[in-house]
Structures are given as structure tokens and as C-alpha cells.
């Protein structure tokens, strides 16, 4: 039973001034937890709204289990949405909110009652049936929104930044709950978020979107470890970017020249020749004292700043090429023997150093990630 398979083919949405979604192709497997990740304005919400039926595509097809639903009105699609602000009907109590869809589907009274109560128990809200949405906390409202959508047993559940309005701690708890719930019910989830950590921890696969296009699709680990574009490298956690010139591959690694330094990069576009960017995650850079053994792939530098972030210390180092790199040193309880102005050297392991094509003229530079989260969690 292939229920909950979504295929987007050349899906495009143009508004008066902008193309919000630009010919995207995407396949989401049944039962998958799939995230659309990107900064605001990247087209992820518009994509979701087209799947839900709130926006009509300018072009392209939306196949739901093989049927094109692009021109089916929202109320006739077997998909349900959890809205960012929940959109619980304020004039109805919790039970009536959850029963709303069942009643529209003209289900018999006993079935409405039974399924609504069951859905509320699924989200651990049993006993709150007669509360008004305004009498619930943010987290509880979020659960009601979830129950209201799940009770209809949709093929696909669409979630539009459902945890965005909650505080950090509650968000973490609900992330885990949501993931568990999704495994339990086995419904395809399409989850829109701008929070890279959320997308990485919850998804089976995710698509990184930018400027109405999909930059990369893959499992969280693939996308994080092997970003294909500069944007992805930058958006998924903090990345150190350096200008360099690629000089082609030798022995399966790319020789790059950054300023006057020769480096070897073991991943990315290793066949590249010409202007390039080299990328390395802060948690993969190794901080050494100047006296340590000299060797390949090392850059001398000077500590500029130490930033204590709790689980780790961020060391900001200005290297000899003039660029500033971030090094993330896990907090092991020891005091780092560095301070502002200490001369150090950075070891950039070959397998952690990645070459990517430098963006062409006119192409958008990657934007800064909105939330600089504790990147050590992914290392």
C-alpha cells in the first residue's frame, strides 16, 4: 500500500514580483519524515502551501500517490496541515476543534467521539476536551493542532514550522515526541523549518532550499558531511570558508592554494581547477601550538578571541592568509592554554577539508544562518 508518496515535478510559483518556487522536482517516499530547510524567503513555505492546496502552482505537477492534485481544492485533498500559529478555532473547544474535520466528513456521531478522544490521547491531552484553545499553553495548543490534523488519517501531514513559537526547551522535547509519533503512525511528514538543527535531528531526509530552488537533497548526515554547494555548507551549521585556487586532483585529493599556502583537500569537487572555496567545519579544525610538529595542511595564525559557549569553547583565529577561522574545542573541563594574541597553528585534516566551486558572478552569496546553535551537538 503506497500511501503518502509525494512527487513534485517542475513545481513553480510566481507571485507578481518574485518567483517564490522555481521548477523544483522532489520525491518523498511513503512514511518518510522529510524536511524542507532554508532561510526565510527560500520558498519552503510556498512549496508546502501548494501541496496543501492554499496556493495554486503557476506551473508543474503535484502527484499524491500517483494522482495529480495540483488543481484539486484544499478541502478535497487527503493532506492535513499543522500551522505555524496552530490556527485553532478560538470559538470551539478542544474536542470540537479535533472533531471539526470528522464532522465535515459526515462521520457518525459515535465514530467522531471515539476517534477524537483517541487522537487527543495520542498527543497526551486526554481530559482537556472542554477547554478553549485560549486556556491552553503553547505546547498544548501545538498538540491539539497535531491531533486535529492526525485524526483525519491523512496520507501526508504537512507541518509549517510547528515548533517555531515555543521556547527552546519545550521545542527539544517536542522534537523527540514528534519524531516518535511519526514512527508510530507511519504517516508521511513534510516538515518546514529554518532551524538546521531541528531538520538534522528529526528528518529521514531533507531538502535544503535557497532562492526558490533546491540546493541539495539527502539524509541529514550526507547533507551535513558532504555539502554540495557553498550555501548548504554555510547554512547547515557554521562553516569556515576560505578563498583558494584549485589546481586539480592528484592521488584522490585536490591541491589547493590559499594565498601562499599549499593545502590538500580530500572531499568535494576534487577535480576542480580554478577559483574555489575551501570549507571546513569548526569542530574538525585542530588547534596546535606553534611548537608542535610542522607538517602539511597547517596554517599559522593568532588567537583573536575566545568565546565560551558552555559545551565548547569557540576559538577565533586569524590565519596567515588574512582570513578568520573558527575552531570549536569541546569543553573537557581543562582551561585552554590560549589567550588573545597567542600564536598558534591550525591543522586542517585532509578528509575534513572540502573544495567547492566558488560562486559565479551574480550568483547569490550564501546568507548567514539565522540561528547560530550549539554546533558541537553534531560533531
Amino acid at each position: 500500500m503506497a500511501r503518502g508518496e509525494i512527487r513534485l515535478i517542475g513545481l513553480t510559483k510566481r507571485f507578481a514580483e518574485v518567483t517564490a518556487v522555481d521548477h523544483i522536482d522532489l520525491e518523498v517516499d511513503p512514511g518518510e519524515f522529510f524536511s524542507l530547510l532554508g532561510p526565510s524567503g527560500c520558498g519552503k513555505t510556498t512549496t508546502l502551501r501548494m501541496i496543501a492546496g492554499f496556493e495554486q502552482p503557476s506551473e508543474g505537477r503535484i502527484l499524491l500517490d500517483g494522482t495529480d492534485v495540483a488543481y484539486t481544492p484544499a478541502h478535497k485533498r487527503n493532506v492535513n496541515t499543522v500551522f505555524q500559529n496552530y490556527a485553532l478555532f478560538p470559538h470551539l473547544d478542544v474536542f470540537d476543534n479535533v472533531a471539526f474535520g470528522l464532522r465535515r466528513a459526515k462521520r457518525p456521531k459515535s465514530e467522531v467521539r471515539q476517534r477524537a478522544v483517541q487522537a487527543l490521547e495520542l498527543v497526551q491531552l486526554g481530559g482537556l476536551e472542554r477547554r478553549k484553545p485560549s486556556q491552553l499553553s503553547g505546547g498544548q495548543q501545538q498538540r491539539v493542532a497535531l491531533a486535529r490534523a492526525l485524526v483525519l488519517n491523512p496520507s501526508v501531514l504537512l507541518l509549517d514550522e510547528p515548533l517555531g513559537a515555543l521556547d527552546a526547551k519545550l521545542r527539544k522535547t517536542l522534537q523527540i515526541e514528534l519524531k516518535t509519533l511519526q514512527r508510530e503512525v507511519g504517516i508521511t511528514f513534510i516538515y518546514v523549518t529554518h532551524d538546521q538543527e531541528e531538520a538534522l535531528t528529526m528528518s529521514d531526509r531533507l531538502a535544503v532550499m535557497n532562492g526558490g530552488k533546491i540546493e541539495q537533497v539527502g539524509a541529514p548526515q550526507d547533507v551535513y558531511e558532504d555539502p554540495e554547494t557553498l550555501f548548504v555548507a554555510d547554512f547547515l551549521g557554521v562553516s569556515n570558508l576560505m578563498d583558494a585556487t584549485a589546481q586539480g586532483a592528484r592521488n584522490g585529493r585536490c591541491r589547493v592554494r590559499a594565498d601562499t599556502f599549499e593545502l590538500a583537500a580530500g572531499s568535494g569537487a576534487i577535480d576542480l581547477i580554478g577559483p574555489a572555496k575551501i570549507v571546513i567545519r569548526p569542530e574538525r579544525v585542530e588547534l596546535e601550538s606553534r611548537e608542535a610538529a610542522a607538517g602539511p595542511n597547517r596554517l599559522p595564525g593568532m588567537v583573536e578571541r575566545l568565546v565560551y559557549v558552555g559545551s565548547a569553547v569557540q576559538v577565533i583565529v586569524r590565519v596567515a592568509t588574512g582570513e578568520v577561522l573558527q575552531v570549536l574545542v569541546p569543553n573537557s573541563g581543562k582551561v585552554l592554554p590560549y589567550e588573545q594574541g597567542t600564536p598558534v597553528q591550525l591543522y586542517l585534516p585532509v578528509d575534513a577539508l572540502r573544495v567547492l566551486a566558488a560562486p559565479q558572478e551574480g550568483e547569490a552569496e550564501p546568507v548567514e544562518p539565522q540561528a547560530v546553535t550549539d554546533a558541537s551537538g553534531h560533531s
Partner: protein
Amino acid sequence: MSSVAEAPVAPRPSAWRRFRGWLSNPWGRPRFLPLVTWGYVVWSIVPVLIAVQFSFNATRSRTTWQGFSTRWYWGDPVDSVWHDPTLRDALVQSLKLAVADVVIATPIGVLLAIGLARWHGRGSGSSNFLMLFPLVTPEIVMGVALLLVFTDLFTFVGTGTTAQILGHVTFSISFVVVIVRGRLFSIGRQYEEAAADLGASPTAALTRVLLPLLMPAIVASAAVVFAISLDDFVISQWLSKGGETDTVPVIIYSATRAAPLPSTNAIATIMMLLSLASVTIGFLVWRAFTRGERQAGQSVVRDMGTAPRVGDI
């Protein structure tokens, strides 16, 4: 501590300075604005109170107080509101127009508001602007225009009750549209989308979700329509056929010019209480309906405000 004790003590300010401080102290309660506010309240309410007082005068005088009586309401067998056919008919006519106005203008205005708020195409901007027209057009112009329309163009209407109702509906629809549209914008589209998402047809979304959410605005606008219809003089006068189609304001106007009796004050007081009652009821209903939203702390209200998410496309 010693250093604190040794700090120099500021000299006691002069009486004038202290008065200035009392009047405008940035840390204290505002004094000046309440003074202005209360001044205005007294200024505007005193004439009304005097008029009301003389409706209870025991004699025919409207200027000299000669004891309390209710003769101008129902006591006097000839000239009281209850017994004078002119006054009674006027009261009945005013109520008739007001009720008809509410019954006709409110539903049309609600539909117009929904239509205008949801219509984003060529001409939507000018239509929205046109809705404000009756609010800013001098009523006398509208009255004359309507009279010409009903006596020259649509002669089957003529003057009288039908014309008056049509006239009242014409200018009161704007009030309904403005009030309901404001509420529509603060509700946003998300509840309709949620309803559609849950399988509600457009009709079901309207009746099950949108109209209940609009209810406070609908009741409030009905109350406003009732009050302004009772209040209206110009259009009621222009479109009146005379006789029993004269409304209370028209009667008061002509009575005041002829030989005013305290019964005029009495009927004015009744009108005022009716307007006040309708607006109070409207306000109370609004409050009762939206209580949940305010209780939700900021969350629901804020969510409503930010509902159309233009930013994230």
C-alpha cells in the same frame, strides 16, 4: 553608609516648582491630561443632563425648574409622549426605520466586507475607497441626491417609509463594512485555510468558522447601525412624506421651532436611552465574545495580527 549621610541635601523647592512638579511629574501619575479629559466630559454632558432634567419638569416651562413629574412621559392626557399621536407615531416610525435598517444593512454589509477583503484584483482598491464615500459625503448632499433619485428616476419608490429605509441602508452599510472589515483583517485568512484543510467546503468554512469569528463585529455594527439610524435627521427629513413618516429628530426639530413643550425633552431622552442601550449591548456582546481572545494573553491576539504571513514565501 556614612558617605550617603554626608551627601548634600537639595534645598526645598519653591511652591511654584512643587506645583509644577505635581502637575507634570514624569514619574508620577499624569495630572494635566485627566484635567482636560474631565473638562471635556463635563462640557459635553451638562447640556444633555439639563435637557433630561427638564423632561421631568412639572410645568410647561423648559427653562425654570418647578418640581419633578413624569407628566411629559405619560401623565399628561394630551401632550405627553404616550398620548400625543404625533410624538407616538414619530417614535414608532423611528424604531421601524432603525430595525429595518439593522435587518437589511447588516447582512449586506457583512457580505460586502468579506467580498472586499478577499478580492485582490483590478478595482479592489477603488471599491474599498468607495466604501468610505458615504462616511465623508455631506449628508445633505446625499439626502438631496436620494430625493431626486426616488422622485425622478425610481418614481415607484416615491417618498415615505420605503424611501427612508433605502436611504438609511445606503449610508449605514459603510459603517458595517468598516467595522467588519477591521475584524476580518485582524482574524486573517488562517482560520479559513485551516477549515479548508480539514475538509470544509467554502460554504462550511464561512458558516462554521468565519461567521462565528465575525460575530462580535456583526453585533457591534448592528448596534451602531441602530443608533445612527435613530439619530438621523437629514435623510429622514428629506425622504419623509410628512405626517406619520416624520421621525423623532424631525418632530423635535419642528416642535422646537414652534411651541416647545417638555414633552420634546422627554422624547429626546427616550431616544438617547435607546441609542445608549444599543451601543452598550453591542459593546457587552463584543466583550463577551472576545473574552477568550484576551484571556489567551497576547498569544491568540498576536497570532491573529500576524496571520497573513507575507514575509515567508
